[in-house]
């Protein structure tokens, strides 16, 4: 095989690889839709090559460059290897030893210097992107959100619209489209990692060590993610849903979340007894409900029914799954920190009826 054929062949293979990669990773970036009504509520697109936020896009640009360079190196090295295997395999007629070559200074120098130049280029590109993606100051006009990782769920604290109060919610982060979101990451227990691939790369959530990261959703939609650092038994079910909505919708949501839960009417007797049970049993020790209890160990339930999932994404939230969850969380999420309270069916009905009023 002549050098020229080899060269053309290499280019062809590189082109094919890149084309295939492009197809696999890029096509359909806007065809995948999350439909909260289906059973596959956690299904969706987490492809790092489908960015929907400036930092993720920066990373993709760099990634294509790096993939391209690596693909070229790969094809050349493997090509030469295959060529050597075919060309220099021992043939039947061969006798005697080949010429012994102990080395060659120019060749050795070449294969030291050329990789050095390549990694130098890569290093420069890397340094530039680090600067653009890793911000040390919050971007202008950003919304500040405190993210607190717990075993195995996420707590979010963001300011109310007037900036005086705090909205506390869990597992589902509602954000306005087009505004930078500045996250402060805290951990209540072990190390977790915040990763919503289409928004930005991951940043670890470390106890005793506050980290920051940011993103800015370009379009409305649900962007899925999940904890990316092993954090114990239910690491796999510590899912993140970032729900980007237009600003008006976001503000309406903020207003609704800032209100205390609506008062129970006289006719809601089951809910009334459910509320009493909530206070009598262990529930209130872990869960906060505005004006009712202050537990901090589990998610805040004030506006529980405004969320779409339960158990940090372990199941869709509807009356049936809620009942199953309260009955025995260990069925839906083995090993989670909420115990089974061994309620009788009446108690279960009451508590579920109460929780369903928390809209």
């Amino acid at each position, binding site marked *: 095989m002549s050098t020229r054929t080899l060269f053309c062949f290499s280019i062809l293979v590189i082109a094919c690889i890149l084309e295939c990669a492009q197809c696999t990773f890029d096509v359909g970036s806007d065809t995948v839709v999350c439909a909260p009504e289906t059973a596959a509520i956690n299904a969706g697109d987490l492809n790092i090559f489908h960015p929907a936020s400036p930092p993720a896009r920066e990373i993709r640009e760099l990634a294509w460059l790096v993939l391209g360079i690596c693909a070229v190196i790969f094809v050349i090295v493997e090509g030469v290897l295959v060529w050597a295997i075919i060309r220099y395999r021992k043939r039947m007629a061969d006798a005697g030893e080949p010429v012994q070559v102990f080395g060659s200074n120019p060749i050795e120098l070449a294969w030291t210097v050329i990789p050095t130049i390549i990694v130098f280029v890569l290093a420069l590109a890397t340094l530039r992107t*680090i600067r653009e993606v890793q911000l040390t100051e919050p971007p202008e006009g950003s919304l500040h959100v405190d993210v607190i990782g717990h075993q195995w769920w996420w707590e979010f604290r963001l300011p109310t619209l007037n900036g005086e109060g705090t909205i506390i919610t869990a597992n589902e982060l509602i954000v306005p489209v087009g505004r930078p979101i500045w996250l402060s990451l805290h951990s209540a227990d072990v190390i977790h990692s915040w990763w919503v691939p289409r928004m930005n790369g991951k940043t670890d959530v470390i106890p005793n060590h506050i980290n920051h990261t940011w993103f800015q959703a370009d379009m409305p939609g649900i962007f899925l993610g999940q904890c990316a650092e092993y954090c114990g038994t239910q690491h796999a079910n510590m899912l993140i849903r970032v729900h980007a909505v237009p600003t008006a919708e976001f503000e309406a949501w903020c207003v609704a979340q800032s209100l205390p839960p609506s008062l129970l009417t006289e006719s809601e007797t089951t809910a009334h007894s459910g509320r009493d049970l909530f206070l009598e049993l262990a529930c209130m020790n872990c869960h906060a409900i505005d004006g009712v209890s202050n537990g901090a160990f589990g998610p805040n339930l004030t506006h529980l029914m405004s969320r779409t999932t339960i158990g940090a994404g372990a199941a869709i939230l509807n009356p049936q799954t809620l009942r199953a969850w309260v009955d025995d969380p260990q069925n839906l999420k083995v090993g989670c920190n909420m115990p089974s309270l061994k309620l009788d069916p009446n108690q279960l009905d009451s508590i579920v009826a109460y929780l369903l009023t928390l809209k």
Partner: protein
Amino acid sequence: MTTVDQTTAVPDEVRRTFGARVHAWVVSVDHKRLGMMYVGFGLCFFIVGGIEAALMRAQLAQAAGKIVDPATFNQLFTMHGTTMVFLVGMPILLGMGNYLIPLMVGARDMAFPRLNAFGLWLFVFGAGLLYYSYIGAQGLYGTSAAPDVGWFAYAPLTSKTFSPGNSTDYWILGIMVSGFGSITTAINLVATILVMRCPGMTLMRMPLLCWMMLIVGMLVILAIPVLTGAQAMLLLDRFLGAHFFDTQNGGSALLWQHLFWFFGHPEVYILVLPAFGFLNEVIPVFSRKVIFGYSLMVAATVAIAFISVSVWAHHMFSVGMSPEINSFFAATTFLIAIPTGIKIFTWMGTMIGGKIRFETPMLCATAFIGLFTFGGLTGIMLAVVPFDWQLGDSYFVVGHFHYVLFGGTVFGIFSGIFYWFPKATGRLLSETLGKWFFWFLLVGFNLTFFPMHISGILGMPRRIYMYQPDRGLEIWNLLSSIGVIFQGVAVALFVWNVIRSLRNGKPAGNNPWNAWTLEWATSSPPPDWNFDQVPTVGSARPLWDQQNPQDPDSRHEEHL
């Protein structure tokens, strides 16, 4: 003459009772027996770790799999990682060093034979302690349980608060004890290589495997104690109420990461440099050419050793280090690609112009070059910090390091085993079975680990016991799981090959591959005393000089 007559040697073994034979192995201080025991134990644990991996792949073959429960899955990946690194890679590689180094430098035994035996039994005891946890340890829910904190055991998940019971203590103590064993073996290797070389064997005339082992020994001596120290701190935390990694009392979770990876990254090179060494022996012999650029290979190895202690934080790009520190560790990581690349080019330079015989050792070695190149390139992608923020802790990383440690180290180990098995046992492994083994392993390996890169890009984090359906992950995970079957068949073929060849393999003769280093100058298996006369060498390839007196290597030494 030193050629052992098989017909008289075998009945001698048979005459003794089983107990007496076991006793002879247990009390032995002979580096050859110790080396074989290391490799034997390592291969047993390779099968155990493989079964653990197969169970995980069975669980992940479909979305939301229900074959094992989450706690069991977490134990499986913890034990799989720990086993493969500490109970497979380290003992097999150090064990092969143990077997080969004295033979290659023309010595009677290691520098400290009794320390050598001590090291082996420390390793066995540590391994037993770790695996005893399956029976004896108290886990998260008070049931008997293996450790479930992951092989890098990040604080504070390992603290008493989050890991009650004592399964984590089994992990700490098992690794600590076997670590002491590794340190003693490393001291022995360094001392043997520096002190026990036969007349004429200067450092630059050593077989390259000896160079690799010398550097590995030094890295073990520098790296393992850091892990031991960190584990001692963790023990103090867990038993005496110290606060090293106690984040609830001001301790730092990052201190553990820094200490662990200061050990952990050199450890990667500890696991791969000996395999490089095997290739440095196998590729020249099967290409019938001298290594292309001996001294650059030595220099590259030394460079890798130096740089490898300054790259550790590239495992921590997502912990929130400053942009400056991230940039520094990215730069050092890029830098280490250069000497690693030199090695790949050197092997190919050796093959080019040769007359390559593709017997099983060479097949494995060639696969090593191809697969390791791929693993190295994905490593470069991971060194690109922003790319790492996306890829780190995803299945892409799992794919990457399996290409390096399986495609690299394990293929290197099999290359070495097929190459030196005849020397150690006096019998050749079957070539036919060997080729079947190789192709099954190669296909199975790629089928399992290549799709992992894609799962990672599609957003699948590692260490999850289940993944959500309809994220596009099913097909790639299914392929990964199917690959395990091929690998299982390959391992079964290998075991069958070994058993068959030990019983009635073809007698090997002293030098079945027509190789050039000193171990092939003595009989197969070598006598207890290794060499009848202390050999004297005039170059790095004494047997070449002997076969080609008209053109000995010593004439070309200025090139070296």
